[in-house]
């Protein structure tokens, strides 16, 4: 089971609303390389890992990805906080407002709703871990693109933190894959 910690893994305090940026960053909530997809991909894979290392690592990284969903959600909430309906319309979020009001909704940067087809499973530990390594690399690249799209330090700080976590997770998945290859698991 999971326990809630009443804090973010990394603080988010964004002073300036930026609706255009929110529309881009939403892809790390519900997009193909987003945190929601990563969390579910790892948590679904953990049941069939061949040993305790894999079960532990997928549980722990999958859990951390849920904390990243919360960081991205906090960023979206604060970037859109206090926006008027007119401002939302001008930023291309009129459709979002029509359907969801001011609620968050997991979608990609084009507005396509989150879909479980983002998650990659193959019923094979090597294939699964390698898709996780790919997921971490794609997320790292997406964070770099998002960092290219802003100069606001309040936004860059959590994006840089999240990008760095992809690098660490990639390393751990790589170690697990190499270990399984060596042990022929």
């Amino acid at each position: 089971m999971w326990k809630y910690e009443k804090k973010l893994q990394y603080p988010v305090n964004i002073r300036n609303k930026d609706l255009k940026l929110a529309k881009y960053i939403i892809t790390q909530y519900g997009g193909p390389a987003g945190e929601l997809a990563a969390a579910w991909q790892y948590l679904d894979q953990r049941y069939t890992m061949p040993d305790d290392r894999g079960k532990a690592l997928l549980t722990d990284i999958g859990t951390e990805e849920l904390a990243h969903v919360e960081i991205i959600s906090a960023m979206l909430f604060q970037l859109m906080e206090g926006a008027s309906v007119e401002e939302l319309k001008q930023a291309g979020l009129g459709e979002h407002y029509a359907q969801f009001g001011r609620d968050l909704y997991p979608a990609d940067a084009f507005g396509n709703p989150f879909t479980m087809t983002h998650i990659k499973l193959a019923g094979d530990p090597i294939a699964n871990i390698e898709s996780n390594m790919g997921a971490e690399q794609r997320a790292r690249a997406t964070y770099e693109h998002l960092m290219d799209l802003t100069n606001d330090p309040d936004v860059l700080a959590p994006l840089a933190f999240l990008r760095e976590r992809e690098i660490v997770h990639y390393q751990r998945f790589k170690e697990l894959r190499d270990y399984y290859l060596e042990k022929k698991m």
Partner: protein
Amino acid sequence: MNTYNQNYYSNMYMEDMNNMNNITNLYNMSNMNDMNNVKNMTKGVNNNNNFNKCNYVQEVKPTELYNSYEGFIRGNMYPDLYNQYKVSKPFDVEPMNEQAQLLTYVDAYSFGAHDINLYLDTHPDDKAMIDLYNQYRMESENAIKQYEDKFGPLFVSSEATLTYPWSWNNSPWPWENR
């Protein structure tokens, strides 16, 4: 502006951190709280943007770690794995009030423990790192207690819920701007 006060941070946990130094010495850090050492330690760290250059191989154990705060602001406890993009140096956390400051201690120690937790999942036989994990876990528990005594529960299971009226539902919530 209200830059994060490293001295305050250091003094507060000086005693505990000194204990921790016994363990970090194993990783060539003579004093966890000494910013100069952090700078020296990070010399030669690969800071370019080429992701593929920052892999270390499984057999090589990390020779050094950042302290928990330096690791936390980077999102990475391992100098040989760290690289950055776009920004020239990591952002310091700038707590705007005592509550945010106490929460930063929780954040930093919990992060240190968590990043070592992931390492141990794939290196279960590294005794020094198990000790370091437990040091950070204890530091994190101390920091949580200190925060909760003043600002209420971070966990609904914590002793800080022994209040009337019920304090779990108090603001701020994590996503709220401080």
